[in-house]
């Protein structure tokens, strides 16, 4: 059903095309096969990747420490056990909604204005919103755990702290590990994105080579990024498999103490690694304290502020979100259905999705500008394409673990492979997938700022404009409106998700998709 959105987009496309750029697109596509192998290029790409990976790793580590700490602090179960009352948790939760509602790009650009171009900016920009998001997920995970064991230990006289750790730690751990590894992938994507906006690393290289039309060098960077992403996803997939055991009753289980030991060893090993990475990138937290002299702020221009076309800004943002979400949510199953008959096609789709995931949306938008006019649909295409890659991977993972029996029954009854996939497997996945789509729409709303640079896309582009023209009054008002909109969107998507999942059969799959996979 959401795939119906393709029709108006396809119909509208001819009016957007401005011609002229097709040659460039062709060059871009051709360059994929012959990336530049110039040692100087390769070296700068590798060092760029190093910077990006370092920003991602440090930002991720910071967000996990922040997130787990704050997550425990905003869990009702924890407060109820320690104090006998859950109210402080709600307060902390509400406070955390504010840093969460602002995209890491905005944090990055704001900090960039405040402290200048320091390597630490990207790290903090990732750590703050990610930390707040992890905190929410962790507290949700903790509060969803059954408290019977906890009560049993408390009733036997165990102090609150050790009782919480012993009763809730072991069931929480696999979920937390799975989620944190997913977060690391997100951090790498975000670090690349921040680079596109000038915070250094591979993203900056990608944007510069794209803007100077050096497609062969661009592809060198892209292939390296692709390789790094595949490596990371494979490694994390293997670790998830080893530790997070969602199907733990079917396999021989490691003794829990052993798993704990491995984790502690890994955690200890991570500390010197993080320190080394921080030093090699000359990341200096002290830099955060040295604020730049800001340009004089002047009195706020209320008239100008009120003069902004707010309804249109907000409206465009919502339209952009809706279009991109529909493209991504509808596109993924449609593509899978189209290629269901050919194994090779599936491989191609998988490759395209991988590319979509790691390819920052603003770069797609820039690329699209070669042939399309700036505006909401162009931005929506770019954003939708990126999220299509993320949703597609999830759908594929779920589809592969789903029960194949109904599909096989259909095929043996003479149904075509596409129909069989649609009726046999997708029908069971529809609800959890749509529930995740609802969550994704909420992410897209937050992300809509990153395609702001193609212009006229609502709040996002206005924000970037306000940032670059130092219009602080505008900036604050815009961030506030944006945050409010995001919180509203989050609430709506939460409701939609709960509704979808409640009516679904309460199987593990739907919980996995709806809960842990944020």
């Amino acid at each position, binding site marked *: 059903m959401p795939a119906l959105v393709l029709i108006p987009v396809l119909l509208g496309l001819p009016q957007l095309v401005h011609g002229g750029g097709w040659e460039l697109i062709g060059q871009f596509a051709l360059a994929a096969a012959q990336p530049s192998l110039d040692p100087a290029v390769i070296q700068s790409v590798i060092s760029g990747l190093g910077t990006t990976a370092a920003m991602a790793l440090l930002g991720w580590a910071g967000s996990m420490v922040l997130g787990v700490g704050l997550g425990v602090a905003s869990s009702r179960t924890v407060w109820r056990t320690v104090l006998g009352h859950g109210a402080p948790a709600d307060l902390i939760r509400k406070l955390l909604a504010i840093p969460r509602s602002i995209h890491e790009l905005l944090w990055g650009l704001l900090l960039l204005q405040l402290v200048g171009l320091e390597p630490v900016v990207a790290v903090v920009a990732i750590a703050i919103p990610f930390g707040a998001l992890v905190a929410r997920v962790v507290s949700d995970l903790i509060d969803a755990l059954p408290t019977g064991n906890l009560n049993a*230990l408390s*009733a036997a*006289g*165990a102090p609150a*702290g050790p009782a919480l750790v012993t009763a809730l730690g072991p069931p929480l751990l696999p979920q937390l590990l799975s989620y944190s590894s997913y977060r690391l992938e997100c951090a790498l994507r975000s670090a690349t994105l921040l680079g596109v906006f000038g915070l250094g690393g591979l993203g900056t290289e990608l944007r510069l080579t794209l803007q100077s039309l050096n497609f062969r060098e661009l592809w060198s960077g892209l292939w390296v990024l692709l390789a790094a992403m595949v490596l990371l996803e494979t490694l994390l997939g293997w670790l998830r498999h080893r530790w997070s055991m969602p199907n733990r009753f079917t396999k021989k*289980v490691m*003794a*829990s103490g052993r798993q704990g030991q491995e984790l502690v060893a890994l955690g200890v090993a991570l500390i010197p690694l993080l320190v080394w990475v921080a030093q090699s990138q000359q990341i200096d937290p002290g830099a955060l304290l040295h604020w730049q002299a800001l340009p004089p702020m002047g009195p706020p221009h209320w008239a100008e502020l009120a003069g902004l076309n707010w309804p249109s800004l907000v409206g465009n943002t919502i339209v952009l979100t809706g279009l991109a979400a529909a493209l991504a949510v509808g596109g993924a199953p449609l593509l899978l259905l189209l290629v269901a008959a050919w194994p090779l096609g599936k491989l191609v789709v998988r490759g395209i999705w991988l590319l979509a995931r790691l390819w920052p949306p603003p770069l797609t938008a820039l690329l699209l500008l070669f042939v399309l006019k700036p505006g909401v649909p162009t931005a929506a295409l770019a954003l939708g394409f990126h999220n299509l890659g993320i949703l597609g991977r999830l759908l594929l993972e779920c589809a592969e673990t789903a029960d194949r029996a109904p599909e096989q029954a259909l095929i043996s009854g003479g149904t075509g492979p596409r129909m069989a996939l649609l009726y046999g497997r997708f029908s069971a996945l529809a609800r959890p997938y749509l529930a995740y789509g609802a969550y994704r729409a909420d992410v897209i709303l937050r992300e809509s700022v990153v395609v702001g640079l193609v212009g006229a896309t609502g709040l996002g582009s206005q924000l970037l404009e306000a940032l670059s023209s130092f219009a602080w009054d505008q900036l604050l008002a815009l961030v506030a409106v944006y945050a409010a909109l995001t919180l509203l969107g989050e609430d709506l998507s939460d409701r939609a998700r709960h509704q979808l999942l409640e009516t679904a059969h309460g199987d593990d799959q739907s919980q996995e998709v709806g809960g842990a996979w944020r």
Partner: protein
Amino acid sequence: MIRQTLEADSAGSPSHPSPALLELQGIDLAGKGQRRLEAIKLNIQPGERVALIGASGAGKSSLLAVANGLIKPNAGTVLWQGSPPAKSRRQRRRQQARIGTLWQDLRLIEELTVQQNLNGARLAQWGWPKALLNLLLPLETGPCAAALERLDLDQALLDRPVGSLSGGQRQRVAIARLLRQEPLLVLADEPLASLDPRLAEELLALLLDYTRAPRALVMSLHRPDLLGGFDRVVGLRAGRVLFDQPVDQLGQDQLTALYASSL
């Protein structure tokens, strides 16, 4: 065979003439619509083994939850060894450590090994460092193995995750955890319900033997045929105590009245 020669070991009997291990006075507990418990009065002396019987929904589980401090009653007093639940957290924990509960749903931590679960009963005595170490290393293997042996379980189970055990094994691990806690007052919520008859009788015998003075036992039961080893029987009906008397004076008419459908 389960060893029947258990002695009430170092449970730290109070020096002064012992007050009742558990005393409930005028307990009221509100529920949805009707009250779950009403005007409950109960007194458990050291050495007493009391069976709690009644139809499903009569309030047996609620009564045990009030007795172990999990639920605070709407009215009435709970006294453990003559003292009300302490305000100070440390005192309260010390009180709780003397009450061992055998939960109907066992409440073992599935992800942890048998040994880690058994050690969970010692958290009241252990501080943070030992509690954390327990999640990483096998601690106090000797006492844990001894607890398993009393229940006729193989020591090799110690490093198996609880999630991989059979129903009967899990039940016995839960009892072994209770023994590890060394409580004075044992509260058991239908611990025999899902066991085969032979195992049920063995475990009942073990619990009855373990709870000689200075300990005491309150066990809720579904089966009147297992009342033999108990000293007293308390009949609960619709949240009220219908009778509270020595087991040998229990008549068939009382049982009939207890289980008769209301109205």
